[in-house]
């Protein structure tokens, strides 16, 4: 970040610092840090993906792509809905592993018989 020190009035006052950055919730601080880093990578990936979608939009229209056009692009209401759906799908397929059930494996060979898989359901 840029150095924001300035002699200009900012009207900011002294405050009481929170201690939230010190908390550890998992089995080790490294696990906590890796989760945070993983989340940050997800955010960076989504920013790149969104930029690619804008580029693809202009490419499909055979436009000469000016970086300023990319920067200023405002999705249509339909694109907005579609992009948010894609974002939600990206988050779900990336992070849903965290919701898996973790019962201990109880038998030497799997025993649970389930219905045949349907086409189109991954």
């Amino acid at each position, binding site marked *: 970040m*840029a150095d924001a020190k300035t002699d200009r009035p900012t009207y900011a006052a002294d405050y009481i610092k929170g201690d939230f950055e010190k908390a550890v919730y998992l089995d080790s601080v490294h696990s906590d840090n890796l989760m945070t880093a993983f989340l940050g990578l997800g955010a960076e990936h989504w920013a790149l993906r969104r930029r690619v979608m804008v580029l693809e939009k202009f490419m499909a229209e055979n436009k000469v792509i000016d970086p300023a056009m990319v920067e200023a692009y405002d999705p249509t209401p339909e694109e907005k809905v579609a992009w948010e759906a894609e974002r939600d799908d990206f*988050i779900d397929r990336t*992070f849903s592993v965290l919701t898996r059930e973790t019962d201990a494996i109880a038998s030497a060979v799997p025993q649970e018989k389930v219905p045949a898989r349907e086409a189109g359901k991954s």
Partner: protein
Amino acid sequence: MLSRRNILAATSAAATVGTQQAKAAKSTVDVKSDPFDQTEAQKEFHAARFATLDQESLMSFAEGFKKWNATDLAGRDGRRSTNNFLRSRGLPIGESDLGYEESFNVLLEDPSYAAKTRLERSAQALMWDRSMRAFHGDADKYLTLMEETDNAGPGSLELNPDMELPDYTIHEIHAQPGGYVGDPFAGWVYHWALTQAFYQGRNEYDQVHLSIAQGCPKPADGKVLRILDMGCASGLSTTAFKERFPNAEVWGIDVGGPLVRYAHHRAVKKDIDVHFAQRLAEDTKFPDGYFDIVSDYIMFHEVTAEAAKEIVSETYRILRPGGVFNHVDIITEGSSAGSVPRTIREKAESWNIHRHNIEPWWHEFTHTNFPELLRTTGFDVDLTLRNAKGIPPVIGIKPV
């Protein structure tokens, strides 16, 4: 279409949403609208957008992740996992005598709950950090923007940099770096992070804040010429009241100087004639009986129980007989809309918010019987109202 370069919406749209200014307020004009069914012009007027595509995309991720965390990891799957864990430990899924902190510590032994909590906190930090970087990374620009509007109208701005700030007001509430008072861009950051990502897409066009104003009942005589929005933060509900009552003199006050400074900047850019002042809600400086409506939105749970009593008394003083106190906040003792935490999971979540999201007075507030506090102060209380999205206001009416 909205230009990303023009980060606060064009003023030309103001006329389309009924914010024409009335210089001499003589009669009540009530512009009713549906915050959840806005025209494209209204959406353009209310929308706020980051200055760059990447800033917008990073916040979009934070918004999406918070939604997924709430609905999946902490929601459906989280409840199932927590229930299985509690059963395995022989602990009740229903009401429990365990305390708040103890409940939280017990559930942290459930790997799913621990992961959920870690990601919740990390997502909150990511939301704040990326927003902070957006504004501090271009600090000169944003300081200049505020300097250009500090003394500009419409409306006015009163900053009190020498004001003594009570300790309870200077915490890093919501884990926002610097809190409400300590960062030069607190108002920008609060608006662009919290009121966008926190609401998980439901407040992109100020729908929540507009619904607070639209759902507020008028005094019985219908007269609404002066309105105060206490704890106004970035001023979204303040301008929402002006949109509904364009003839009224509308004030927003907040303890955070950087908050009201941004709120004023935003209002000037939108050509909305409202007044902002850095003042305490327990010491508003307004004359007795000055306001027809005093409103607060999610302010009281960030103040101590002692301050809450003082603020309710101050509200009573500055309302005129028949005036309306429109209070919208989390559920407390005495609420008609639900109960305070009873189960281990509810208590753990409550502790998580209180201690780990830095909301130091959360429990003091939830265990205050707020409707009763209003009654003992002299208000008649109405608990029957619901606004469009079911946020339950507590309405206090100062007897005539």
